[in-house]
C-alpha cells in the first residue's frame, strides 16, 4: 500500500476529530502533571491544520505534510508545537520526491523520531510522547506493510505504559515521583495521531 496526499488529509482530519472530542480530557491530563493547556493547544493547532489542508490542493504527500508541520509549528505553541512540528517536518522532508510506500514512510518516521529526540533533548523512558513514537516505529520495523491493528495497539499500549514512568523531561518532571500514576498528555495525543493513521489505512484498503 502507498499513501496519497489525499490520505494525509484524511489522516489529519481524523486526528483533528479525535483531538477536538478529547480536548477536555487532554487538558485534564495536563492539569494533573503539567499546566493544563495540552488539549487547548492541540485542538487549536489541528483545527488550523484542517483549515489549511482544505484550502489547498496537494500534488505530493510531502507537500501536505509540510503544511501540516508548518501550521502546527505556528499554531500550537508550548512544548507540543515545536515537537509535533518537527516530527511532521522531518517526515515531509524525508518523503520529498518519493512515493509514500511503507519503506519510505517508515524511514520518514524514523527521521521524525530522531528529530523529536534532538528537539526535546530527550530519550525513551522520560515520560514524553517519545514513549509512543519510539515503540510504534520499532514495531513497524518488524512488518513490511501497513498493519492498522498493530499500529493502533502498539500506540495504545505504549501510551498506557507512560502511566508507570517517572517524568524526567517536560513540565511533569517538576513533580518527580508524584508524576508516576498519571498518563503523559503528549503520549495520549500521539496515540490519537497513530490511531487516526491506522483508521486511514483501514479506510484506504
Amino acid at each position, binding site marked *: 500500500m502507498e499513501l496519497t496526499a489525499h490520505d494525509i488529509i484524511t489522516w489529519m482530519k481524523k486526528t483533528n476529530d479525535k483531538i477536538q472530542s478529547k480536548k477536555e480530557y487532554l487538558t485534564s491530563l495536563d*492539569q494533573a502533571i503539567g499546566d493544563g493547556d495540552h488539549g*487547548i493547544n492541540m485542538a487549536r493547532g489541528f483545527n488550523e491544520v484542517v483549515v489549511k489542508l482544505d484550502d489547498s490542493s496537494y500534488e505530493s504527500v510531502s507537500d501536505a505534510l509540510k503544511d501540516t508541520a508548518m501550521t502546527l509549528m505556528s499554531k500550537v505553541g508550548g512544548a507540543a508545537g*515545536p515537537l509535533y512540528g518537527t516530527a511532521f517536518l522531518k517526515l515531509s522532508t524525508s518523503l520529498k520526491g518519493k512515493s509514500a510506500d511503507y519503506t519510505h514512510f517508515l524511514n520518514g518516521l524514523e527521521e521524525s523520531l530522531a528529530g523529536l529526540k534532538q528537539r526535546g533533548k530527550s530519550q525513551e523512558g522520560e515520560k514524553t510522547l517519545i514513549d509512543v513514537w519510539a515503540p510504534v516505529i520499532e514495531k513497524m520495523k518488524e512488518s513490511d506493510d501497513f498493519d492498522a491493528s498493530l499500529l493502533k495497539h502498539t500506540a495504545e499500549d505504549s501510551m498506557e505504559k507512560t502511566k508507570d514512568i517517572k517524568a524526567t523531561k517536560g513540565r511533569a518532571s*517538576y*513533580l518527580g515521583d508524584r508524576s508516576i500514576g498519571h498518563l503523559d498528555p503528549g503520549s495520549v495525543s500521539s496515540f490519537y495521531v497513530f490511531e487516526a493513521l491506522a483508521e486511514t489505512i483501514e479506510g484506504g484498503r
Partner: protein
Amino acid sequence: MKKIVNNPEYVVRDMLEGLIAAHPDALKQIPETTVVARKDAPLQNKVGIVSGGGSGHEPAHAGYIGDGMLDAAVCGEMFTSPTPDQVFEGIKAADGGAGVFLVIKNYTGDVMNFDMAAELAEAEGIEVEKVIVNDDVAVEDSSFTTGRRGIAGTIFVHKIAGAKAAAGGSLQEVKNIAEKVTANVRSMGMALTPCTVPAAGKPSFVLEDDEMEIGIGIHGEPGIERKRVTSADEIAEELTNKVLEDIEFNRGDDVALIVNGMGATPEMELYILNKKINEILLDRGLNIHKTFVGNYMTSLEMSGCSVTLLKLDEEMKPLLDAESSAPAFRI
C-alpha cells in the same frame, strides 16, 4: 470559573488590544502578531532585548517594555509558549542592527520555540544571543532533568540586561551580564489557591480551605509539598531560607529582593511578608539594596507569593538602579 472575559479563546487578543489602548504613546503591537514592542522600536545600534512566554503572568512581559528594559515582548496563548514565527517577529521588531538578546524562562516549550526562532533570525542575518533563566529553587537542578524553572527572578534579568543594552553594551556584554544575573538570582513560591485557565474552565488543582502548596510554579503546576496554612512569618521563613540555601550569601553582601504576588494576594499581605523577610535578611547580615513588593510575575488569579533574591556586585548595582520607563517597573 468567575472571570471578566468575553470569549475565553480570545483573551490574549482582547488583552493586547486593551493594553495598547492604555499605552498608545509607549507601546505598539506588530500587526498580525502577538508581539508588543516599544513604539519607537527598533532602536538603531542598540542591542534589542526580547522576552516573552505564555500569557497569564501580567504584567510580565509586556509591562516591562520601555527605556532601559525590553524592546519587545512576545505573548503566547494562556500559559503556552509563543511559537517560533511569533518570536521571530519579536526579534525583527527589536533588531536595530546591534543584535538581539533573548531572555528565556527555562521551560521546555519556551526554550524550543525561542531556539527555533533564533535559528530563523540567524538565517536572515540577525545576530541573536540568549540567556535561560532558571531561578526557581523549588525544583531540583540536575543535568538529567529539565532543570529549574524560570519565575520572578526573570524581572531582574530584564532590568539589568536592559540597562546594559541601554548604556550601549554590545550583544556579548549584554549576554555576560545576563548570565551573571541568572547565576546569582534565586526564587521560591507558594500558593493559597489555584488558578483557572479561561479556556480550561476549571482550576488547575484543588486545595482545601486550610491547605497551601509550597514550591508552586507560575502555570498552575502543582508544587512540591502540600501542607496546612501557616502564619505569614512562617511562610516568609520557609521561602526565604530555601532561597538563601541554594547559593552562598555572605554577611555584608548586597542583595535585591522581590516579594512577588501571584495575582490575587492583596498588597497588604505582601508587605506583611516583607516585614519578616526583611528581618531574616538583616539577621543574616545582608544589606538590602532595593526591595520590590507587588505583582511582578503572576499566575492569573492565583493567590500566593514568591520571594526572589539577587546577590549584587558592583557591576550589577548601578544597572539595577538605572532609569527604566517600563510601566510595570519604573525606576
